[in-house]
């Protein structure tokens, strides 16, 4: 018995299925894996692959019903978690196994102070003498995870913290009793890029300090490469590849792994429009564009503050080119999109489109402008009306701008547009819920193309999609630009995504432009400190950069 090795966590042949109105779905279909003490295992997969479901089985927080564990065992230090009594199981949660969730705002209770919520872990497991003792420990933990003024901030509520700080609170809560195993379920996906790196570093430091085993669930290859010792790549509920991460990434055996690796934005492959030397005529010119918002939280209306969302921004979008606008949440990038779409008026400044002043357009001129500038939104689930067929959605611009095409020819046009974006013409009679996220985004692009626009504004258009799908959509956009002479304004928080695609990049912070120039200059010779932070945050580990080149050129 002494020489028999007992891993920290051992999942064997786990099967989970969900029964719903559309039949039974096998979310996890026979997964086996182990985690050793002190090591990091990355579970890598795209949305719906079953990675989070496996985690919720380990954590005993699977919704049952509709979920059902049909086979397998989950052994923690040799004890089968699935065969324990509820009371035994509860003792382990929070004290020996803990979890860090993706969205800390939703996962913290809004009506209790963060100090109370951290202290609760000590109280539940009887590790503090009294409430005050538990609170002292909570404050010490908050200091440890890097929250300043922890004593006074402990009395504050989750909504008073920033996203990164909330995630620190979640981490403090998970680490409270120095568990042996931590599950981090997409711990940085909901955070701004510059904060992501800090949180990952914090998790790694604490893991080393306490010698915990870590299961890192992620869709992001760079995050996995940065953090993990070993990797298990999941697709459709089964593990397609597993092993030491460097080996799995350098000599991938499964076709799916190769596909994932190929989807990493390639530095050398260019999908840009015009060569940099060629200066094309300007299409859209913004000068000193500013937008203020009123904040009314004072007692008297007059005393309310002003928030400058966009601060004297200048840029030029040239024909057949792509301008990338990059920034974190609150940087003003979406306000620029709203201004360019004429959804809101600027406080000062001007935008000229084809030499015409955008903000003085009225009536027929404005309608004509709306034909020329279209938009693709971030969330392909929210931006398509679920009650309209694909044909109706794509033909809607034609219904608004009646002079484009006579009604009899709409149907053919819709079929052409669907073919253009890589869908089947027969998809026209289906409804949005019958499509995946990537397909929906293609439908949204087809809709944008219907009025034959000159400019398409993409507001985080690929952020909600899986990595491999992101690459496909960007390739599609590049292809359409060349075929249809389009220009793009591509708004994103993710610098690597735009590198191969944008001709120029404008980096924004707090409403102002911090750096603006040709893409390569910005990546190779960033002038501003903030741009450098953004670049280093999105960087893939050096050892992965090498394989990635190999993957691209080998393919």
């Amino acid at each position: 018995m002494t020489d028999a090795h007992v891993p920290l966590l051992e999942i064997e042949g786990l099967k989970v299925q969900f029964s719903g109105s559309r039949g039974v779905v096998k979310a996890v279909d026979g997964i086996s894996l182990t985690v050793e003490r002190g090591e990091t295992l990355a579970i890598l997969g795209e949305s719906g692959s079953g990675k989070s479901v496996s985690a919720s089985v380990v954590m005993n927080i699977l919704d049952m019903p509709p979920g059902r564990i049909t086979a397998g065992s989950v052994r923690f230090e040799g004890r089968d978690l699935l065969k324990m009594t509820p009371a035994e199981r509860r003792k382990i949660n929070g004290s020996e196994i803990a979890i860090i969730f993706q969205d800390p705002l939703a996962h913290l209770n809004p009506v209790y102070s963060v100090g109370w919520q951290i202290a609760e872990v000590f109280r539940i497991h009887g590790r503090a003498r009294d409430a005050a003792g538990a609170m002292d420990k909570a404050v010490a933990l908050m200091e440890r995870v890097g929250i300043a003024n922890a004593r006074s901030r402990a009395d504050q509520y989750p909504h008073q913290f920033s996203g990164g700080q909330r995630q620190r609170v979640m981490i403090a809560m998970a680490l409270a009793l120095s568990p042996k195993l931590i599950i981090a379920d997409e711990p940085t996906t909901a955070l701004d890029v510059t904060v992501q790196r800090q949180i990952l570093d914090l998790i790694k430091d604490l893991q080393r300090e306490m010698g915990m085993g870590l299961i890192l669930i992620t869709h992001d290859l760079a995050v996995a490469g940065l953090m993990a010792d070993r990797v298990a790549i999941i697709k459709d509920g089964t593990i397609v590849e597993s092993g030491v991460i460097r080996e799995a990434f350098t000599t991938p055996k499964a076709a799916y792994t190769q596909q994932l690796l190929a989807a990493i934005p390639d530095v050398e492959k260019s999908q840009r429009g015009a060569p940099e030397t060629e200066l094309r005529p300007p299409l859209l010119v913004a000068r000193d564009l500013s937008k203020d918002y009123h904040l009314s939280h004072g007692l008297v209306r007059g005393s309310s503050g002003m928030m400058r969302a966009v601060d004297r921004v200048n840029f030029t979008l040239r024909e057949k080119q792509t301008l990338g606008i990059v920034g974190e949440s609150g940087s003003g990038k979406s306000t620029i999109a709203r201004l360019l779409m004429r959804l809101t008026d600027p406080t000062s400044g001007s935008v000229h489109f084809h030499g015409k002043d955008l903000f003085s357009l009225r009536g027929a001129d404005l309608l004509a402008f709306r034909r020329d500038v279209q938009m693709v939104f971030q969330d392909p689930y929210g931006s398509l009306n679920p009650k309209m067929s694909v044909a109706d959605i794509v033909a809607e611009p034609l219904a608004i701008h009646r002079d484009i095409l006579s009604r009899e020819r709409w149907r053919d046009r819709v079929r052409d547009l669907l073919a253009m974006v890589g869908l089947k013409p027969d998809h026209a009679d289906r409804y949005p819920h019958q499509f995946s996220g990537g397909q929906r985004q293609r439908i949204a692009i087809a809709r944008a193309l219907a009025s034959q626009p000159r400019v398409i504004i993409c507001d985080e258009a690929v952020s909600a999609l899986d990595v491999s799908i992101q690459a496909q959509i960007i390739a599609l956009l590049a292809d359409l630009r060349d075929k249809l002479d389009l220009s793009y304004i591509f708004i994103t928080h993710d610098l690597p995504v735009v590198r191969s695609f944008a001709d120029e990049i404008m980096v924004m912070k707090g409403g102002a432009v911090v750096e603006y120039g040709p893409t390569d200059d910005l990546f190779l010779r960033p002038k501003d400190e903030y741009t450098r932070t953004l670049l280093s945050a999105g960087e893939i580990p050096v050892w992965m950069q090498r394989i990635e080149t190999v993957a691209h050129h080998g393919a």
Partner: protein
Amino acid sequence: MRFFKRSLFTLLSMAGLLLLVFFLSRMTGDPSYLFLPLDASAADRAAFSQLHGFDDPIYVQFGRYVVDLLNLDFGTSLSQQRSAMDIALEAFPHTLTLVSMALAIAFAGAILFGSLAARKPGGMIDRLISILSLTGASTPDFWVAIILVLIFAVSLGWLPTSGVGGPLYWIIPLFVLVLRPFGLLGQVVRGSMINALSSPYVKTAYAKGASEQKIIFVHALRNSMLPVITVAGDLAANLLNGAVIVETVFGWPGIGRLMIDAIMQRDFAVIQASILVTACAILILNILLDIAYVVLDPRVRHA
């Protein structure tokens, strides 16, 4: 700011209410027909009207009423010949105790049963409780009142039919008043509890190792209280007004019965005073509700 605005609106609507009551009550007819003997002469009636100021044009009467109000004079009861406000204030505590006890019972019961039902939506307990609360919410209270009196007071003789006295006198009126609020609140608690129990922060609590009681009554309950408080406030206002029926049926000397009696007797000052008292009670109730929101939800505090 929000608070001031709300208070202002409440005051305005109260002024509107008093205006309406003043004129509507005077449309019910001449009180002299009720207070003087049937064979009283026209001269007697004129003298009565003159004595109480009913012969003045109605706008003059209203002006006098407003001036008196500002001097905190709420008028004199025709039937009892004493301050109308005193009469209303004597009756009000009877209503208040009855209503607040009924509400407390309904609230506690709704939280308990609603939470139990929400534990397993669609389960056996849930269905049983749903039937119970739906029945409660949809049974007419005057009918229940009469049936209960018939069974427990008349046939069995266990409980008194009406009036005030020992604890036995409370049982039927309380039961009748509790029924509807319990049913409605139970449904609201169940719904918002199911919502809260499926939220991500409840998952966090499970992951911490919290017990089920703790998750339901500490983590989920406080979050699910906000819609419940809104509905409970509405029900409390309804109860204050709706006590009229129960008080009349059971001879309870509260403000509801006082109002009915005053209307029957065209005792204008008493009608006005009792409506003023009820309106003030509802105003205070709304302030308490606002405070409850702030206490329960920190996000309201900092908004």
